[in-house]
């Protein structure tokens, strides 16, 4: 193994020789946006909707009721929930199954999953999970066919670089990240978009205005 490593490193060093150092990397692209909270919420909602995500807005006190209404409309009853999901996010009157090492078959069989997120991006309508408290391990938001994600408005950033900066501590702590922009989709057949290939076929988002 180290023979291959030494050989490749040797080739690289021979290839580069005494090539001059590169100029400093220009990073003059936008690093942070200027939108206020209302604009961030509106921007995120617009961009997420473009992926046919259903986006609902509510106040902090109304999350559970809004979730209950959405789930009721979808006809979902049995939902997996991660450890650390804020109490106010859990709708009443549903069969909530805490993820304490649920097996794959169980995860595939629930109607859906409810999670929070680490961050969301207005520019692209993306939600970012760092799989910490309230978000669960990666399989939790992958195997169920429906994902309801609750986004606190204070977690919405304007631009992608802001999300990258915000996620830096999680990455440095070795946590995985999942960027989710709409339900899973393919355009492999004649470029016609089909939603729901392997990940959740439906993604709903509740944005909590004042959280």
């Amino acid at each position, binding site marked *: 193994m180290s023979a291959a490593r030494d050989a490749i490193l040797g080739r690289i060093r021979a290839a580069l020789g005494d090539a001059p150092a*590169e100029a400093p990397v220009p990073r003059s692209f936008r690093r942070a946006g200027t939108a206020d909270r209302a604009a961030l919420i509106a921007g995120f909602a617009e961009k997420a909707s473009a992926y046919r995500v259903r986006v609902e807005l509510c106040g902090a006190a109304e999350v559970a009721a809004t979730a209950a209404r959405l789930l009721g409309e979808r006809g979902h009853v049995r939902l997996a929930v991660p450890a650390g999901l804020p109490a106010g996010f859990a709708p009443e009157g549903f069969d909530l199954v805490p993820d304490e090492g649920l097996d794959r078959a169980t995860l595939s069989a629930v109607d859906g999953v409810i999670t929070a997120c680490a961050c969301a991006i207005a520019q692209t309508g993306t939600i970012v999970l760092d799989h910490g408290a309230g978000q669960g391990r990666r399989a939790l938001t992958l195997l169920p066919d429906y994902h309801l994600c609750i986004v606190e408005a204070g977690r919405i950033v304007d631009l992608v670089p802001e999300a990258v900066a915000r996620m830096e501590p999680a990455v440095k702590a070795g946590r995985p990240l999942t960027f*989710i922009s709409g339900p899973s989709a393919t355009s492999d057949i004649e470029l016609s978009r089909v939603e729901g290939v*392997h990940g959740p076929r439906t993604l709903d988002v509740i944005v909590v205005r004042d959280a």
Partner: protein
Amino acid sequence: MSTDTPVHEGPGILVERPFPAAARDALKDAQLRRNIGKATTTIRAKRRNAVAEMPDWEALRDAGYAIKRDALRRLDENLLKLDASVTAAGGTVHWARDGAEANRIVGDILAGHGAEEVLKIKSLTTDETGLNGALEARGIDAIETDLAEVIVQKGGDRSSHILVPAIHRNRAEIRAIFKRELPDTDDLTDDPKALTAAARRYLREKFMTVPCAVSGANFAVAETGSVAIFESEGNGRMCLTLPRVLITVMGIEKVVPRWDDMAAFLQLLPRSSTAERMNPYNSVWSGTRAGEGPEEFHLVLLDNGRTAVLADEAARDTLNCIRCSACLNICPVYERTGGRAYGSTYPGPIGAILTPQLDPSAEAATLPFASSLCGACYEVCPVKIDIPRILVHLRSKANAAKGTTGEALAMAAMARVFGSERLYALAQRAVAVGQRPFVRDGQIRALPGPLAGWTAMRDLAPVPKQSFRGWWAERKR
């Protein structure tokens, strides 16, 4: 024995025919022309819109270019740092000098687990090395999980596009392949939704049961040991999350120094590739993690000719490529011939510069000439690879490798004529006289030898009796 030169164990990089011959067949296929034309036109328009809403697109391209240049300039450092950080995160790093060595490493790991099947996320790099064939020879069945790759694999076919490999197939053809190859497809219609659902059913069972997976990588971050996969369908997430063993094979040029570098690429790649603001899923992981994802993670760092590209300063930017496929979609040659005419994992403009650097054959050396140098590829490239400039450079290398050909002699003779005002003026008059046997009704309709290609479909106006310099001299008198 591992070698200094690329070794591919399959048809990934195997240019079997000169481009003009391969293109001739492709150009005859009206169905292919229609499918590819429709696809490239659609995605071009979509990309234009996705880019137009970014006021800082050019600044992003500049950053993308500079990050890649800088990462390559310190490639040894970055790879060592990546090796250390992945290892610290619980992963195992392997180095492979060529494709055969990478295939052997992957095969050994899988054999060590007694694997008979392995899940695969679409990976150009393992297509390049011919991994699937190498595993098959060891009795391991590689199961492609990207929808297009399923279509290609089950159709016994070869990819025609980096991003949408089955773009040459229409829904009727895909239905026929699925009815033949997938279970429970008796009532399958040609609706893309139904076709997708059939693939989902077939793959779901595989995701739930197969314990090993192989992926490529879009990026790896040296400082954090993170690997990133950009995808749309969720097959990537399945393979990265559910199996017990994950093996990632990545070209050494995919490493970037810092996590912050992803701020540029998370914007450049999706808009250039699927032409979306963001593709549905981007996964980032570092090594292994208790209670979450694979228990065993292997990262295979592949050279396979990349260091030779690095050594050629005039072609080094080839390694900037992030495999977005924007250059394919904009290329007028690709649009007419499709990807398979390029005989390589890497088709289109990027293939025309990358393939001949990975495959030293005379056939591959025809690829840099498969371009009108229109420059559209450079304009859309998110990492600013000046593909036309590199094409010209590789043309020079191809000519030099061929030595003294008739063409080289003709070019030298013309250079001599252009080197002297007197010879040049004489030649102008000689052409005006020499063309006479070919002029019919004021046009040249047929030419001999290498120029016959011109008059196959095009007339040529004859050379006028008086040149411009003749007119100028007369006027001055």
